[in-house]
């Protein structure tokens, strides 16, 4: 048996939202430590949407974004993606490496590995919060990074999801740092079977 997204009730949606909240909260705490600044976070949104809407979530299919993708194995299987607007990525790298040119959107080797490290730390803290909360074994792969159009980046997890359904469930989180607005989205995309595992571990279904 697997759960259809159309059948998720309000309580189950609330629980998924709360998972997003705690996972992202953990990640944001790690980020604040890393850049030594206070980071604010908006309440995560849980969205079920059709493929035609998928790439519009960041403001259009052609918007330049940084995508960090990893595979999840263990009790929970699927993908996790962290997406960052290109300007936000530049600001983050500048904060980390102490530079101040905000117009340069070409990243050199050092800056790229800094971005990768940010993605690594954020996704790992997100997943460790989720593992702690559910007692599930969650094993993340080493994340890979790509910089390209939002539609192209999002096509990778969307295709994986497309094998089983026509709509996608995104747990979307935005965060910001002071007047330097930095925001990004976490997309936790478990395989369809894993939703049941997740909701069962959280005691929402029998």
């Amino acid at each position, binding site marked *: 048996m697997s759960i259809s997204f159309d059948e998720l009730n309000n309580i189950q949606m609330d629980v998924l939202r709360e998972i997003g909240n705690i996972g992202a909260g953990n990640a944001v705490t790690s980020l604040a430590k890393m850049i030594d600044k206070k980071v604010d976070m908006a309440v995560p949104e849980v969205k079920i949407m059709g*493929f*035609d809407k*998928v*790439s519009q979530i960041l403001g*259009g*299919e*052609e918007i*330049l974004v940084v*995508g960090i*993708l990893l*595979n999840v194995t263990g009790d929970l299987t699927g*993908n996790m993606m962290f997406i960052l607007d290109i300007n936000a990525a530049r600001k983050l790298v500048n904060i980390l490496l102490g530079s101040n040119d905000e117009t340069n959107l070409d990243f050199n080797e050092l800056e790229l590995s800094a971005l990768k490290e940010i993605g690594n730390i954020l996704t790992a803290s997100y997943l460790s919060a989720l593992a702690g909360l559910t007692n599930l074994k969650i094993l993340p*792969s*080493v994340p*890979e*990074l*790509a910089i*390209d*159009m*939002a*539609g*192209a*980046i*999002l*096509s*990778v997890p*969307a*295709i*994986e999801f*497309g*094998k*089983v*359904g*026509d709509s996608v469930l995104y747990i979307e989180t935005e965060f910001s740092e002071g007047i330097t607005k930095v925001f990004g989205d976490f997309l936790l995309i478990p395989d369809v079977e894993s939703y049941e595992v997740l909701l069962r571990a959280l005691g929402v279904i029998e």
Partner: protein
Amino acid sequence: MDIEIIKVGMADLNSSRHPCMLTTLGLGSCVGVALYDSTSKVAGLAHVMLPSSEQAKNNSNIAKFADTAIVKLVDDMIKLGARKDRIVAKLAGGAQMFVFNQSSDLMRIGYRNVVASKEKLKLLNIPVISEDTGGNYGRTIELYSDDGRLMIKTIGFGIKQI
């Protein structure tokens, strides 16, 4: 002359009579299958996500799969006045956006989408006259009904026409 601009989304397809421009934005691992009949000037475009409807648990959306989408697109174009023996194909997309060490199915999906699209077109006797596939970058494509040209726009690799 004003031309109608028709946007084709992910796992979607559309076709139209002249004058029109069919476009799909931000193709990654998906494949854009552009079909054109130069006599009737009927154009069709599909944004294919997966190679085969037969391996899928849920195959209700026929526009999603190479095998079913191409058949539907050809049928739609014939209804608009195209003739099957005049239709030619151009392909774009099928990139590998992320380079993982292990070559899992997820990572090879772009390549498999291209292969499946070509197989289906061959079965239907529709020649692939040009393609811009593979690589590790996204593409926005535009198919024009006046001459069937396919414009391909990328972020780091400029614009080209096939």
